[in-house]
């Protein structure tokens, strides 16, 4: 039986008011900080949309299909930059997918000792850490001069194809595509490696057990099992390639004249923004906002689809 002294020990201590206050305000602070993310995201959309209203009202859909970018006459169309954005990101993906997935296979399957695999993995991660402005600098002074004779011979022998129809004179779309490959390769490799690593070992053992060779196992069993993650990574890389600014701005040539050629200078929406936004005024600013809005909507869509793919189509084993 508890005596009076013991009873006092067990008496419930009420939390002091200040402790409750600290507790609840901490919670509220955390909630408001989490809300900042949503606030910023919505604010970005509103600001960019608001800025583009004037140009939207003036040009409407025509903005997307005309390539006339003329600050003197106040006429703006963004087709050149849309073409540039689309073709550079598409072609860079086309090159980066086999390279990235091939590398991911090479460092997840047991071709080479674990230590060597780790070294390659770390190097790919470090490649992702190199700032894009440094890659741009390298592209201007090292890669482009090195490539020019090669591209010149492309022009000489295949000049009749519209894609190779201009003389390479310096900055252009092809160097931009190649530097984009360097930038998105780490993303594709890292995500492919993660999804390949998640494929259960039993699938592999079963394939070997029925006599499949190593590569027929990889191609027929492991890659299909990991495809959703890889596809999500590819889409993520696509979003990055479309929004990538600095390296592309430095090497693409920033020409607003439409040309099919990949050897000549071109433009992307991001590069156009980087180049002109600081000095523009009047309708040009609004047109740049309009272009930014288009870029924003496309990258948002790509990102959302990629998230959905990674989540919904993930492994069912």
């Amino acid at each position, binding site marked *: 039986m508890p005596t009076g002294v013991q009873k006092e020990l067990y008496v419930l201590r009420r939390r002091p008011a200040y402790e409750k206050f600290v507790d609840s305000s901490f*919670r509220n602070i955390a909630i408001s900080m989490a809300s900042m993310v949503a606030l910023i995201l919505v604010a970005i959309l509103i600001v960019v949309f608001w800025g583009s209203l004037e140009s939207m009202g003036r040009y409407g859909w025509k903005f997307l299909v005309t390539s006339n970018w003329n600050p003197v006459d106040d006429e703006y169309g963004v087709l050149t930059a849309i073409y540039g954005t689309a073709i550079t990101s598409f072609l860079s993906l086309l090159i980066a997918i086999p390279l990235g997935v091939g590398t991911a296979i090479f460092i997840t399957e047991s071709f080479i000792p674990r230590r060597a695999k780790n070294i390659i993995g770390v190097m790919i991660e470090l490649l992702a850490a190199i700032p894009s402005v440094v890659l741009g600098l390298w592209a201007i002074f090292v890669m482009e001069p090195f490539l020019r004779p090669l591209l010149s011979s492309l022009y000489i022998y295949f000049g009749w194809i519209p894609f190779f129809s201009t003389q390479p004179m310096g900055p252009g779309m092809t160097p931009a595509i190649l530097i984009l490959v360097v930038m998105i390769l780490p993303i594709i490799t890292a995500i492919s490696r993660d999804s390949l690593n998640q494929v259960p070992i039993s699938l592999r053992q079963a394939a070997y057990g029925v006599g499949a060779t190593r590569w027929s196992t990889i191609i027929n069993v492991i890659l299909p099992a990991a495809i959703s993650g890889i596809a999500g990574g590819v889409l993520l890389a696509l979003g990055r390639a479309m929004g990538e600014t600095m390296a592309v701005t430095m090497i693409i040539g920033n020409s607003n004249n439409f040309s099919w050629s990949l050897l000549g200078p071109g433009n992307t929406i991001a590069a156009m923004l980087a180049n002109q936004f600081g000095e523009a005024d009047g309708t040009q600013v609004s047109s740049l906002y309009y272009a930014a809005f288009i870029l924003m909507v496309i990258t948002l869509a790509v990102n959302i689809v990629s998230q959905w793919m990674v989540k919904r189509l993930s492994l069912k084993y």
Partner: protein
Amino acid sequence: MTSQATSTSGALSSSLHYNPGLRRNRINRIFTILSGLFSFVAILPLILVLTYVIFKGATRLSISLFTMLPPPPGLDGGGIGNAILGTIIVTCIAGLIAIPIGVGGGIYLAEYAREGPFSRFIRFGTNVLSGVPSIITGVFVYDIIVSSRVILGSSYSAIAGGVALSILMLPTVIKTTDEGLKLVPDNLRKGALGVGASKFVTITHITLPMAFTPIATGVVLSVARAAGETAPLIFTALFSYFWPTGSDAFLNPIATLSVLIYNFSTQPYQVQNELAWAASFVLVVFILAMNILSRWIGHVTSK
């Protein structure tokens, strides 16, 4: 065993030995070589870029590089001292904004949020925000801070640049905090709450210290990434040929390494181009050091 098999069926036993001439084995070898080649091509750019940055940047390395101002076009000598200082200032401002908000948001997601539309929306928004092109962040901050002159009437400023970078850092900090806190075993939380600790004390004294390693790793990586970003800075922090001095240093345009590289790489002067390489060297060394630091944090504390 083998002789028995040979005597019963020669064809079968010979197929039990590895025959390099078989079509499937040839294809196997071709694919192996191909994937090895792809890996080599994939790491080649890193090697080439690092080699050039080291050779072209390190030759320009001297004390004056860190202490002097960049020369006006056409003149010799000079350094990138103000840009180094500027990068440190702008990155610090970004960190001061992004780390508290990011850790706070991560705490909410991991410790408070129940499965519901709000927390789903925040997680989704975090992922989407990390995919927003960095140039758009620049446009956004230009609109709300630079052109509206909302901060004490200043237009281009170190603060505007820091805010732009903080928006880029925020998703990474939130995600690493969220994931780091989720790794903390639930027993610790229950134990703390069971002995009467409040939620606030549980988080600040138990779970946050436990999750220090992953959070610190993520923060260091996001700082490294922010230090190398250029696109959000070119029309927020702009550039300056002078030291950030005086009481209004943060309210004026400020030089940063990344914008210096961008500006100087397109100028037709050799001196400026060399300074761009030197700045790349400093920037790359800093970023690689941060990456190694984050690995070291993970390595040391995992023991």
